[in-house]
């Protein structure tokens, strides 16, 4: 059942990304469309570390997460200066800039050719090469992410973030540092995205810029919105549903020459229907 395990692993990696996106977009209200760029940096750095410097897998993922913490703070900083729709466009810009770097910095990323041959994780003498084995790792990673998310949301930090989303000025008037809270949230989102990147590169063994482009960022947003913004359950269910959706749509019998386009069309219609009739997603709160 490699297909099933592959689905599980990819969905679990996307759950980590969903948590990252949900934290910024859903909970703090920073409308970022560049989370895939941070994800990509995590993936490329892990690939580089395990391939070029033989860093152990877990250390490489840890280092990638740390770099992505810094990077995500950096790309989120403009949101402190420009608000709302302006930040969306800035964020678009950051994403496109990142894609240009992934595609053109051939020395570092393999460029458009991508980076093949990322080795499977090797932990304590065991190689996690089969999808069923990797699923253990991915489940562990997802569980850690979910626990962290859950702990945050029930701690005063979660309440502070929710308050910021509602009214930054009021939060400041209560003697809290909005800046510090936003930076902390961005850091956390960066750690989630970075570790997801590390898992992704090691699982697929091949990465190229197409996994980290604007489409991927939009896919992340869609996952959060369809699953449900601002809740843990929403972040978890979104990736599982959206990754399964093409497989479900494939069951609809359409003449093969237009099948793929027709399925994407249905996918678009579903998005519209969700926004019209259930903007809180499957298990979330209203955005």
């Amino acid at each position, binding site marked *: 059942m490699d297909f099933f395990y592959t689905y599980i692993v990819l969905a679990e990696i996307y759950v980590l990304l969903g948590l990252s996106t949900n934290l910024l977009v859903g909970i703090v209200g920073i409308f970022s469309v560049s989370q895939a760029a941070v994800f990509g940096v995590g993936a490329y750095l892990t690939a580089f570390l395990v391939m070029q410097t033989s860093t152990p897998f877990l250390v490489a993922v840890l280092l990638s997460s740390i770099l992505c913490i810094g990077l995500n703070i950096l790309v989120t900083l403009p949101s402190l200066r420009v608000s709302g729709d302006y930040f969306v466009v800035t964020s678009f810009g950051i994403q496109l800039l990142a894609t240009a770097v992934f595609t053109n910095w051939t020395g570092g990323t393999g460029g458009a050719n991508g980076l093949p041959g990322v080795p499977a994780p090797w932990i304590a003498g065991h190689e996690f090469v089969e999808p069923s084995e990797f699923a253990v790792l991915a489940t562990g990673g997802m569980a850690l992410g979910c626990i962290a998310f859950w702990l945050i949301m029930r701690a005063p930090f979660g309440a502070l973030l929710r308050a910021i989303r509602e*009214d930054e000025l009021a939060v400041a008037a209560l003697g*809290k540092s909005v800046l510090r809270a936003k930076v902390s949230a961005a850091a956390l989102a960066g750690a989630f995205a970075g570790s997801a990147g590390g898992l992704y590169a090691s699982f697929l063994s091949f990465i190229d810029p197409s996994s980290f482009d604007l489409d991927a960022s939009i896919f992340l947003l869609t996952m959060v919105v369809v699953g449900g913004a601002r809740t843990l359950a929403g972040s978890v269910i979104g990736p599982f549903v959206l990754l399964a959706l093409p497989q479900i749509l494939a069951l609809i019998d359409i003449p093969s020459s237009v099948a793929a386009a027709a399925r994407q069309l249905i996918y678009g219609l579903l998005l519209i229907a969700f926004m019209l009739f259930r903007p809180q997603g499957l298990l979330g709160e209203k955005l």
Partner: protein
Amino acid sequence: MSAYLQVEGLNKSFGGLQALRDCSFTVAQGRITCLVGPNGAGKTTIFNAITGFLVPDTGHVTFQGISLDGRTSQQIVRHGIARTFQNLRLFVDLTARANVLAGMQDHVGEEPFTAIFRPFHTARALAAKQDAAMAVLAHVGLAAQADMLVRNLSYGEQKLLCIARILATGAELLLLDEPTSGLSGAALSDVMALLRRLQAEGKTLLVVEHNTRVVQQIADDVLFLHQGHLIAQGAPADIIADPKLAEIYFGGAI
């Protein structure tokens, strides 16, 4: 001897509009001072200047002998000054209790590191704060509404909650921006009773107030602001009796 709160020579202009001009006054400890004046007189601008939400062009604010110039709103709350907003700015999608908790200072786990790595410590500390938050709510008479979403509270209850939220910060000087506006009957007397009770407990209140009857009943001192300038101050009876001020206030002489 310096005053409890001293405001000296504040000037602030927005583009061509002079919102504050050479505005100076003092507020005495343990008293209720009402800030009155027609719309656009600069009352909220003074609040903003005292609480660090805007930087005056010139002038100084001193609180208990400490200069507040250049302090952020966050630091000013830590010095013991907190304010409400005319348009409330409550967190309407959170419960009343969560709003009060948001006002409390020094939470354990208000940053991710402790929240994640010391979850039990965080949870214990939060449980203790819950009790304190309930006490504050009970104090303003909202204990029964603690777990209701703010958007479902009545306007009067929301007004009380605004005060509860800044009480939770532990501030000694409370700046209230029109705490009674839009209220009447029981809700109005609830708020007025609360203000007196707070004074009795030793808080100092600076209140922007439009209702002259309220001013007469609660104010110890009145500051009269007109076109960004402090034009009169004194006991409420004196200010309200002054025909020139009444002319400005009601006649809209601009």
